[in-house]
């Protein structure tokens, strides 16, 4: 229709308030998530469903489906930009555009190990879901689901040394548009479980130890930055089935049959035996050996770990 302005009527949103309101308290943790990560309506139906979904996602075999929890944030430095304002010659001023959120959170738990892990996400297309000290999880509402907040930038600061007055400085920074957590905020007030209890996976580093006599390999496993020896707590569980180990031909990617595994008390590790008759077994060449996926390890009684790949060179 000609000369139609299609004006929005005044009063499309009422401003009365009920007994409850959403107030975000101190932000004490976050989950880094991939672009495709979604908490579905079913996941958000109950506390138990949400807890199960977060635990499953924190230990997901596929990194694309995994969430990366970070807890124990200690403070916030809010460097959110002020709105850009234009003042006219007659004195009136208007907001031209809003500033972006720019939050930096210091933390100590995890130290440089966590800092280095987080620095791996710099430049990635990563998103975030935050939670506050009252257990309110909040992200970007999409229909009746919640997804991660798209970021202009995620950054993990290089650590700074302690001084006589302050401990070492570790911080992580988020820059994003206000839209996602204002008009489009999605939240869930948890009750009955703590978001702090959702733990991320730890890397496991495998190494060869003792006498190697192909196709029999002596392997040790140490976890996390501290090098925790998995033998102490999980020797029997890791040796409970050959399926807890994956061997592949480094050149072709083809799986090599693991014929047996056993605890080796002498090296505080495991004897892993491969099938030298397997056509994919390289008599000379490299083998990639790792523990099975996190879900397999969890089922075997070794929860919370993901194995890095050990390259074994047969000469």
């Amino acid at each position, binding site marked *: 229709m000609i000369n139609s302005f299609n004006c929005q009527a005044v009063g499309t949103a009422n401003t009365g308030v009920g007994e409850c309101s959403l107030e975000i308290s101190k932000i004490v943790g976050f989950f880094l998530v991939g672009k495709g990560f979604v908490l579905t309506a079913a996941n958000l139906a109950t506390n138990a469903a949400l807890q199960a979904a977060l635990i499953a996602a924190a230990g997901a075999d596929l990194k694309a489906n995994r969430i990366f929890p970070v807890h124990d944030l200690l403070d916030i430095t809010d460097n959110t930009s002020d709105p850009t304002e234009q003042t006219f010659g007659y004195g009136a001023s208007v907001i031209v555009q809003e500033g972006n959120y720019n939050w930096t959170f210091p933390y100590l738990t995890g130290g440089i190990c966590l800092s280095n892990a987080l620095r791996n996400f710099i430049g990635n297309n990563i998103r975030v879901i935050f939670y506050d000290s009252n257990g309110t999880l909040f992200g970007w509402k999409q229909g009746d689901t919640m997804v991660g907040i798209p970021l202009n930038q995620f950054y993990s600061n290089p650590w700074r040394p302690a001084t006589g007055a302050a401990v070492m400085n570790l911080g992580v920074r988020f820059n994003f548009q206000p839209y996602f957590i204002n008009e489009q905020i999605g939240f869930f007030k948890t009750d009955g479980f703590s978001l702090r209890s959702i733990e991320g996976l730890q890397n496991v580093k495998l190494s060869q130890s003792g006498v190697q*006599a192909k196709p*029999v390999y002596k392997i040790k496993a140490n976890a996390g930055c501290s090098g925790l020896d998995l033998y102490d707590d999980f020797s029997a569980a890791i*040796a*409970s*089935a*050959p*399926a807890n180990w994956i061997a592949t031909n480094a050149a072709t990617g083809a799986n090599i*049959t*693991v*014929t*047996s*595994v*056993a*605890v*080796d*008390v002498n090296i505080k590790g495991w*004897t892993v*035996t491969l*099938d*030298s*008759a397997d056509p994919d077994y390289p008599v000379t060449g490299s083998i990639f050996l790792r523990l099975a996926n996190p879900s397999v390890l969890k089922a075997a009684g070794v929860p919370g770990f993901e194995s890095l790949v050990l390259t074994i060179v047969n000469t």
Partner: protein
Amino acid sequence: MAQEKTKPSYNKDWANKVGESEFVKAMIKAYPDLTADELKKDFAKLKEK
């Protein structure tokens, strides 16, 4: 005190593909504290399952 003997977990699918002698030959190299008779018993148990 004598060290406890190794108790390997075997790949049953693989064991079902190979004969007893091949099984014993491969495993005795991996676990020299186990005798051929013990490995034969392990092999027989795998076949029973």
